[in-house]
């Protein structure tokens, strides 16, 4: 029951991939700064590993929103 690939379906697929891809880039940029700071803090005080790790994954939400949006977009095709 493969869906017939039309231009519309292709555009939807591109939209979905942009949603995930661009948010992933955003997440990466955000985590870069936090990660660097967290490693710096850890060098000073090793116990901060736990907190640093948590802080670093906070922007991960962005890519998850992207994924949710991608799924919603893909639902258009069914």
């Amino acid at each position, binding site marked *: *029951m493969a869906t017939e690939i039309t231009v519309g379906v292709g555009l939807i697929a591109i939209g979905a991939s942009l949603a995930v891809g661009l948010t992933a880039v955003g997440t990466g940029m955000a985590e870069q700064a936090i990660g660097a700071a967290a490693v710096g803090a850890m060098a000073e005080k090793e116990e901060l590993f736990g907190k640093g790790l*948590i802080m670093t994954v*906070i922007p*991960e939400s962005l890519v998850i*929103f992207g994924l949710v949006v991608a*799924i919603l977009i893909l*639902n258009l095709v069914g």
Partner: protein
Amino acid sequence: MLRPKQMLKLTIFGPKSYMKQVIEELYDMNAVHIEDYTKKSDDDVFDIGNPLSDNEKHSDTLVKIRSLISNLDIERKNILPRETSFETIEENVTKLHSKVSEVMAKKEYFTRIKEIYTKKEIKKALSSLRLRFDDEFDYTSAVYFIGFVNAEIAKLKEDVEKASKKNMTFDSHYNGVKAIAVFTDHKSKDDVEKVLEDYDFSPIDNPVVKEHFRDLTSAPGQRFVKLDHEVKAVSDKLKRVNDELSELKGENMIFLLSSEKKLTMEVEKGEAPLKFATTKNTFLLRGWVPRNKSKMLKKKVEDVSNSKVKMKFEVPGKHEEVPIEFDHPKMVEPFEAFMELYTLPSYKEIDPTFFMFLTFPIFFGFMLGDVGYGLVTLGLFLFLKMKMPGMKNFLNAFIIASISTIIFGMVFGEYFGFEFFPPAYGEHLVDSLPEHLINALHMHPMESHGALVYPFPHLFSRSHQISDLLSISVLFGIVHILIGLVVGFINIFENHGIVHALEEKGGWIMIMPLIVWLLLEPLGVITGHVYDMLASILPPLPVLGIMFAVGAILTIIGEGVVGVIEVMFLALMSNILSYARLMAVGLASLSLAAVVNDLSGQMIQSMGIIGIIPAAIIMILGHGINIALGILSPFLHSLRLHYVEFFGKFYGGGGKKYKSFGYSPK
């Protein structure tokens, strides 16, 4: 369970003559958290106390014991202190310490020499010796000893002087080792040799020396010198020293460990007055004691001091910083580690460890959700628990999470990423099982890529019901955040009254239904059964609108500008959607597992029986990586959902840990 242990504020006041007895009693009880006394200004009546009289002596001995333990490489074990008197301990330790220092110095010396030999640095070492002979000294007919010693040069020279009337001694340092050259007449050769032997003289072989002598006069010789003999001699000596050390270790291990414990306890007691406030003849200490231990404490201290020492117990005031001691059943205890990682709850708020115990394993299991992975992680954590007893608490939490992973794996019907029976077997199974069982366990054959597949028994398929998975994840979010808001409401209600509670948390709770409606209708994030369920609970739209308006006004009153911004940007919505990670992380791990399985399947298909080898490698590597990611990522995300989304709704934190004065095994 939802509150830390109740504490009473304690003040003890009495004459200094009873201070030692009181300290002993408190230490034995191990129940009082002592607050440090800090002198605010010079006018204060009280001074910080001085350590007990023998404390300095005991500390010195303790330092020696610890250096012995580390020098002898003794593994720490839990050994009970013994009834040895402090004098005996001190005497034995001092003796042992000088003995071990001597042997350690020898060890260091031989190790250095061995290094010089094996690195072929002997020539450099020799050329550091500057030989300048007096005119009347006939060095050509003299006997010489050239090599390394482990000694103070001045003392050695003195001894050599005694042994030989006619001698010349040169010395130098090379790389932390002392090199010497002693020249003497034939007559005193044996005597000098004996002296040198006492200083662990390690000679440099004759050919080398001869070579070097030529260096002094002519161009440097290039002859390669074999040093095997010396290296072996030094290695033998080094071995003897090491044997001596391990013998010392075997003899003294128990003594050292038990004495260390005994003295640690004594020093802790001895230093206790540093936390007290004292005058010339009295002492005063403040601290905290769990309510259930206060009666016993009062009785014991009165007994030991003939009621001369007075005590007062008070209920802590509103703004006092009370130390936190968790009060949980054994099952919940592992999750205290996660609270310590973040921040401890303060005394006046609800301790969320129990919620963490409920939801952390659910989230973790929901994300990893695979029977095979669950079994592997369970085995791994049980193994680690055996190897690292120090991490017990943390690992216990993971063991609970692994069990939850196995349960969710069964719900999802996933076993190492496999979801389907082999077709032949599946067909047979479906034919032989009763109809109602197949219905209940969703085992109907499905079409996938043009072929029939027979799924494992499951209640819910993650790979085929993605939008349902999303709905369930978001539902988890709604419930979790609602719990958070209600807990926050209770916290504020208890500490600041109903008005504040309504403004700060009630507002959010009233905004919540409209957000849920937004997720249902215009956005369509929630679908399927979850949609039906939520739609049946929600009141009609106008009511939702009014609730939102009231809630928004309350929030703006309660939280000011920040509140406005949060309402406008629908912070709740993004918090709830953040729970979609439960779906996302799970799908990612499932897809990776499926890819690994497909790849290895293709290997076998295309290469036949030989393909089993690459297939096995792909399987082990792929699943290995996926399990490693599968521990890290669900752990982090589950923790994050608690720390950021959940705790953000109610948690203040900032409590300090209750540390009782007494012996605590580390």
